[in-house]
Structure formats: C-alpha cells, structure tokens
C-alpha cells in the first residue's frame, strides 16, 4: 500500500466524521471548529492530488480567512445562542436525510458507470507541473484566464464595499435604540 493510499484512508473518514459532527453541534462555534478540521483534511487531499498551491491557499483563505470571519460573526451574534432540537417542519429531517443519501448514491453510481471506481489516475501529471505547480498554474491563469482573473478581483472589491454598505449603522438619526426596537417589533408583528 502506497503512501497516498494510507493518507487517503486515514483522512477520508476524518473528513467525513468532522463534517457530520459539524452538523450535530448545538453550538455554532463548535461547528465552525469541526469545519476547520474538515478543511485541513481537504487541503491535504489537494496536496496529494498534485496541487501544492491550492493546499496552501485552502488553508490560508478558507481556514484562515473565511472561517475566522465566520467566528467573528458568531461572536458578534451571540456565541451562546443554542439552537433548539425540536424540528417544527414535519418530515423535513427525514426527507432531507433520505434524499441526501439518494443523491450520494446516485453520484456513486454515476462515477462507477462513467469512470469506474478502480481506475487509477494516469501517470505523467508531474509533467504538467513542470517548473513547479505555482509556475504552471500562473502560466494558465495569466494567459488563458486573465480576464476572469481581473473580473474576480473587481468582485472582491465589490464584496468588500457591499459588506460595508450592508452593515452600516445610521448614526445620523437621533433615535437609534427606539427606532430599532419599534421597527423590530413591527416586523415581529407582520411575521406572526
């Protein structure tokens, strides 16, 4: 058994388990932490599959930035909020699980029908990564995908501005607490 197989068979269950556990936590912070574990596993998979660049990016961006952002917001919204266990929608849990299992089964079947589960990846991938994965990736990125690259950068700027706009508090009006409460009360009523 080669190294990558060992790695796979150790980390795959861990990633699945962490994902499941992420679901089952009542505390959002715990969920976030399990998700980070999952991300780490995935990043190792990326490395094994011949993408050391993405291995790092996954950790830096996802686990490092996105999950931190999540944790910030969880703290902001109240870290001790616990979700109730009672499901008010009838059949939601049952159908969700059943259908998700069905989807998983279908994907498995599809894979088996198409690629076959036993096919090993062809050799010669290292030739693709000639000069290092970063360099090869950069070649593709800045030559063929230059436009999407630029557009995505603009997207990031827009996202940042959007976040600022959406969360802006109106400090100009002189009724911060009263207005919020009455507005909240109004929306409670219409929601009821």
């Amino acid at each position, binding site marked *: 058994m080669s190294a990558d197989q060992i790695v796979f068979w150790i980390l795959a269950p861990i990633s699945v388990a962490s*994902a499941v556990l*992420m679901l089952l936590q009542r505390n959002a912070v715990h969920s976030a932490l399990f998700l980070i574990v999952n991300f780490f596993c995935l990043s190792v998979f990326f490395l094994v599959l011949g993408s050391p660049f993405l291995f790092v990016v996954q950790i830096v961006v996802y686990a490092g930035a996105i999950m931190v952002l999540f944790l910030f917001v969880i703290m902001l919204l109240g870290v001790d909020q616990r979700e109730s266990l009672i499901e008010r929608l009838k059949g939601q849990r049952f159908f*969700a699980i059943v259908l998700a299992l069905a989807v998983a089964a279908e*994907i498995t079947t599809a894979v088996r029908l198409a690629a076959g589960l036993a096919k090993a990846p062809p050799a010669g991938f290292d030739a*693709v990564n000639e000069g290092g994965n970063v360099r090869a990736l950069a070649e593709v990125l800045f030559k063929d*995908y230059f436009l999407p690259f630029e557009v995505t950068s603009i*997207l990031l700027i827009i996202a940042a501005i*959007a*976040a600022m706009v959406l969360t802006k508090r109106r400090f100009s009006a002189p009724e911060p607490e009263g207005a919020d409460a009455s507005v909240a009360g109004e929306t*409670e009523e219409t929601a009821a």
Partner: protein
Amino acid sequence: MTTPIGYYLVLSGILFSIGTVGVLVRRNALVIFMSIELQLNAVNLSLIAFSRQLGDLQGQVLAFFSMVVAAAEVVVGLAIIVAIFRRRRTANVDESNLLKG
C-alpha cells in the same frame, strides 16, 4: 499516486450530501452558511481530482476561482446575516417567513 480517482469523487459526493443535509436541517443561519461552504469544498475536491485525472490544470484554476468567489460570497452573506440579525435579534431562518403565501 495509486488511489483510484473514483474514491475521491465518491468522497466528494458524500461530503456534498452532508452539506446538503446541513442546509436543510439546521436553523441557525450561520451553520447553514457553513454547510454551504462544505458543499463548495466538496466540489472543489472533485474538480481537482478531475484535473489530476485529465492531466489538465484548468480544473485547478477553476477550483482557485471557486475559492476566491466563495470568499467574496461569504463576506457579503455574513454582512446580510448581520444586518438581518440586527432587525430580528434572531438567527433562526424559520423566522424569516414574510413571503408566506
């Protein structure tokens, strides 16, 4: 490497399904969001697996872009959740049912 690619794809499918369950079952908006991120990652995994299989770096490029856009999306999404929370004092998505017919 000698692990058949199919295993990675099946793993990706399983993770995706778990993420789906998370979206459907949990009521906390943030946990739902995290499940969505899980789904996105599952897809990224399959993308990179295919990239390996086909010997083409475009899969990795797409996964890269997916991560970037996911980051932007998280930013905006969390901002929205914060804005909603400010109004309603609750992160329970079931409470946002004003579009009820």
